[in-house]
């Protein structure tokens, strides 16, 4: 029997805050602005897309204390037990501006000023992590921050100037690392946390085993990891989510095992942490991965969550399906595994039984003889939802395609394999003409819709053209891709 605690504690800048009346839908932003009355953090969109509410959250991880930028508007307060929340008010010390702030003043990085605190926090988060960022890193850090006044040019100049400043060792978050770690460790008492406000319940299990128990005890509960989707149910749809089981803090779900044949990823691994695995084992996915959300969303959102919510436009399922990943589901009855493509049954329906949680994903490593590619097309290059994404894995022997796994997102009610295309290609010569002809089979597999992201016709065209691109790019990468910057 685990101990149960009916309060949560966290550090807010320098202060320890302990709260008892917390509901699962309470957001960090509302807490900051309405309760703590720290109004430097702004609300721009309340859906995690503009970054005006960016704050840092420090958490204890396997790598020790890490600080990450998050969108306070969709970060649910209950998930912050034993965390360190750092807001814009923490930066200027003793009447002196922080180097990032000074650079923003010197380079005229603010006009109306409303997005500015969020931009400062994103740049601050970047410099804590990457003291000497290049332009790619700066732009990546700002993917989740909108500015409508400046055209970003002065902000980028400020970012470069701030990166030149070498006084960062004195930064309180660096100098105070040990003390903060100790304070956060003291808050982690191993208890299950059960919070209520107005009859709404938020539950933070003590462990993965406890999570399975809590889920069994609480049928119909909403499971929340990064809240990058559920946060919008709360802020936009005002959907009741109680009772809610938070799992983002569970160490067991953060586990990553790099085996000989496959990589196992805990469901709670964030996109940002996953990026390191991508770089090491799936480099073909690096640029694609960097286009998922903005940095704040990549810090919050989890691979498991993107799978579990079954969105037809999630960016992670297509490449995972193409790679042949399997999903493991855990319940009080034990563990169940299935190929990821079988997990998605229909629009909004997944093969997750009552009492099960998505525990982890097992992703086979592509062998040396395999050609892999993944593409995303969206109206705006970064921080946009795909019109279509496609992922491809081919085996080619003696100039002939011997195996093919192809999956698309945005082309059907679920992420889906293009089996007719695969069937057509197996046995074909590895050449552009075959890839172009295979495009005809896309229509057999997939009937996309027209909406605000793209017309059905356009979706079809780019799904087909992606097939040609796999070949062309394999032959000559430079000639076929925009001179993109970034992870590639």
């Amino acid at each position, binding site marked *: 029997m685990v101990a149960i605690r009916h309060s949560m504690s966290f550090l807010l800048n320098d202060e320890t805050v302990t709260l008892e009346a917390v509901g699962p839908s309470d957001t960090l932003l509302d807490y900051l602005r309405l309760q703590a009355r720290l109004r430097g953090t702004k609300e*721009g969109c309340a859906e995690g897309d503009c970054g005006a509410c960016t704050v840092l959250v420090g958490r204890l991880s396997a790598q020790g204390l890490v600080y990450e930028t998050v969108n306070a508007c969709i970060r649910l307060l209950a998930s912050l037990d034993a965390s360190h929340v750092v807001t814009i008010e923490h930066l200027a010390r003793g009447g002196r501006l922080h180097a990032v702030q000074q650079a923003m003043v010197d380079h005229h990085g*603010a006009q109306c000023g409303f997005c500015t605190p969020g931009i400062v926090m994103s740049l601050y988060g970047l410099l804590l992590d990457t003291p000497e960022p290049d*332009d790619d890193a700066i732009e990546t850090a700002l*993917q989740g921050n909108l500015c409508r006044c400046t055209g970003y040019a002065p902000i*980028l100049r400020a970012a470069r100037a701030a990166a030149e400043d070498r006084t960062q060792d004195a930064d309180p978050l660096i100098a105070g690392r040990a003390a903060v770690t100790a304070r956060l460790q003291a808050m982690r008492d191993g208890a299950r946390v059960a919070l209520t406000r107005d009859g709404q319940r938020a539950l933070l299990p003590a462990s993965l085993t406890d999570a399975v128990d809590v889920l069994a005890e609480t049928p119909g509960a909403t499971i929340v990891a990064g809240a990058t989707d559920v946060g919008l149910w709360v802020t936009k749809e005002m959907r009741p989510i109680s009772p809610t089981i938070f799992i983002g803090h569970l160490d067991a779900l953060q586990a990553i095992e790099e085996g000989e044949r496959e990589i196992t990823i805990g469901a709670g691994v964030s996109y940002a942490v996953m990026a390191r695995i991508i770089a090491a084992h799936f480099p073909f996915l690096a640029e694609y991965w960097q286009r998922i959300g903005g940095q704040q969303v990549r810090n919050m959102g989890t691979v498991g969550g993107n799978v579990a919510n079954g969105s037809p436009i999630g960016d992670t399922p297509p490449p995972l399906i193409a790679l042949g990943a399997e999903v493991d589901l855990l319940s009080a009855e034990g563990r169940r595994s299935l190929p990821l493509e079988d997990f998605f049954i229909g629009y909004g329906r997944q093969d997750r039984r009552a009492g099960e949680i998505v525990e982890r994903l097992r992703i086979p490593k592509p062998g040396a003889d395999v050609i892999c590619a993944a593409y995303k097309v969206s*109206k*705006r290059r970064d921080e946009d939802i795909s019109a279509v994404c496609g992922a491809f894995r081919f085996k080619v022997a003696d100039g002939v395609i011997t195996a093919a796994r192809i999956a698309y997102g945005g082309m059907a009610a679920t992420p889906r394999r293009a089996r007719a295309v695969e069937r057509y290609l197996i046995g074909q010569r590895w050449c552009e003409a075959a890839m172009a002809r295979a495009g005809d089979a896309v229509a057999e597999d997939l009937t996309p819709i027209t909406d605000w992201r793209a017309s059905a016709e356009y979706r079809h065209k780019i799904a087909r053209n992606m097939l040609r691109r796999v070949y062309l790019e394999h032959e000559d990468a430079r000639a076929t891709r925009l001179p993109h910057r970034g992870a590639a």
Partner: protein
Amino acid sequence: MNRETPQPTDAPAIPLGRARRATPHDSAEKHVTGTAVYIDDMAEPAGTLHACLGLSDRAHAEILSIDLDAVATSPGVVGVLTATDIPGENDVSPTGKHDDPVFAEDRVLFHGQPMFAVIAETREAARRAVAKAKIGYRDHDPITDIAAAEAAGGDLVTDPLTLSRGDAAAAIAAAPRRLDGTMTIGGQDHFYLEGHIALAIPGEDDDVTVHSSTQHPSEVQHMVGHVLGVPSNAVTVEVRRMGGAFGGKETQSNLFAAVAALAAKRWGRAVKIRPDRDDDMIATGKRHDFQVSYAVGYDDTGRIHGVEATYAARCGFSADLSGPVTDRALFHADNCYHYPAVRLSSRPLRTNTVSNTAFRGFGGPQGMLGAERMIEEIAYALGRDPLEVRKANFYAPGRDLTPYHQRVEDCVIARIVAELEQSADYQARRTAIIEANRESRIIRRGIALTPVKFGISFTATWYNQAGALVHVYRDGSIHLNHGGTEMGQGLNIKVARVLADAFGVGLEAVKITATSTGKVPNTSATAASSGSDLNGMAAADAARQIIDRLRAFAVEHYGVSADEVAFERGKVWLGSERMAFGALIDAAYLARVQLSAAGFYKTPEIHWDRAAGKGKPFYYYAYGAAVSEVAVDTLTGEYQVERVDILHDVGRSLNPAIDLGQIEGGFVQGMGWLTTEELWWDDEGRLRTHAPSTYKIPLASDVPRDFRVRLADWSENTKPTIRRSKAVGEPPFMLAISVLEALSMAVASVSDYRECPRLDTPATPERVLMAVERLRAGG
């Protein structure tokens, strides 16, 4: 990776007036520390209530019933407001047309139209309650776009305009060549980061103070008075700063302020209204989308003989500012080009969509885009570089009469274009791109140089006035108030600098205060790029009055001659003696010298006869040009802007840093309008791109890595504007047309530049790919 630091810095290369300094924004330190106070950050009075609007979920319907019982009994609700609760008039139309109800009464005319408001103890309680309304409708077919509006008979929201000179039809018929075309131009959401907000605090009698995020406090004051049925002197509107506006807070703030004031007076408590981002985007107006139909007669040299064009605009359900917006489209349908014979007509069409409104450029960008499309079409038809066709048609001495019969007397576009063509190495790059495109199967490039000429002044001539109120306190500190509003554009720092220089004191001696209708009355909107021109002059006038009195006092009191009195570096020179500014002020006070003055300015020379289509609506023009280079992926239509060079004319800059910010920011905003920002309505008339998740404004990574912006440092305004500067808010927005045309060139490469791709906007990757495939298939 060549990103040049732009030219203007603290050490400009040319001699400057004292006002011309790259001083940071007056609120810069507050911005970066999060201590700048926006309305939602103000400490609320105890007992503040929160309002939320109930919006129509039909685009066109009769309202059969409004059942708000469940709303009124929802937890935390204090009450509801509908049209019947309005003591004054149920109207916030800015042009007196009485077509903009606060709350819809018997019918709804667009999806998202406010019908009622809920007032509750918390914002969350108000939002939850709104969802419980039960509305009975009888639906009618909505008319949601320009084609449908024309098909249904073309109902107009306001009188159209025709500009005409010579016999355009005859000139086109007589010209050696002719082409006809149509272009569809998309709208744009402002996406100010701070959404609409108002906080109303009730006072005694009929009084109410409203903190409103508005560009037009006087209009908000008048509208609130109108809705409450009280005179304007009962209403005080204050605005310290806005978190962005861009035209979206010129008239659209009226409704929110009126609802907050209505509720504040009804319940005797402060009331705040801050719509959610989605409601803000659904319920407030945007940039007009247009369809331009044109016929051009021209010759083999590319010279235009005659133009006939119709500019049809989707105005939405009411007039709002659609009249002046569509007028300004026509005023810019010539851009920098002389049309020997011309006939331009506007069609401000009524549709069942949100009422479109002001947005940076105010119709000018759409007008100009039509002109540039005609140039582009001529160039492709003749197989020439569009730049040659542009040059062949520039205004020049003897060819200087606009379609509205104003002479272009200050034209510097030829010099700007020549300098930019050189500094951007346009010709060599264009040649190299054409060469490279031949070898490149998938990635194609394009480059374009496009010019801008933008008319400065409100075309509503009476708006071209401004007031300022300046107090000098006994300790020598100065209180500055003027009728302009600060939305990030740096108006206050420009005006404060003018004032500080006039008194010979440092900026720290000047306190910038919130704009208040109680201090400067009957102000114009801070719009039309006119903020510094008008308010800078009004503040200078106030300063001059006080200085004249101080000088007279000094002559009398210290026995010096008037020309021996000088105000410099915080000191006052009295012949060879000097004293501290504060000491002179204190002495003047004791001698009973009035140390406060109201300044005033009205723009000279301008006049406009709309019925005749003739006059001089603009005091002067601002010019600029840009070269953009893009790369396009012809497998997907995705693209990237690789390099942009800009040379822009701000006259003698009042503040190069602020002006540079306006140019860079305006350009990128314009680029968003023409590329990724797409407003998408479904068949039922619902806007489906109403949040940043679906409506995509540019990000840092969309900005060209190589972005070189320079001010035309040789330019000064030929008119005696404040320090010979020029307005800068809107003109740079239109420099982004170069991006569209560069995309067009990249697309045209797939059919060897034989055909103009006629890209509609926004040129999303989808439109680009579709154009590529159309051209490949042979048109």
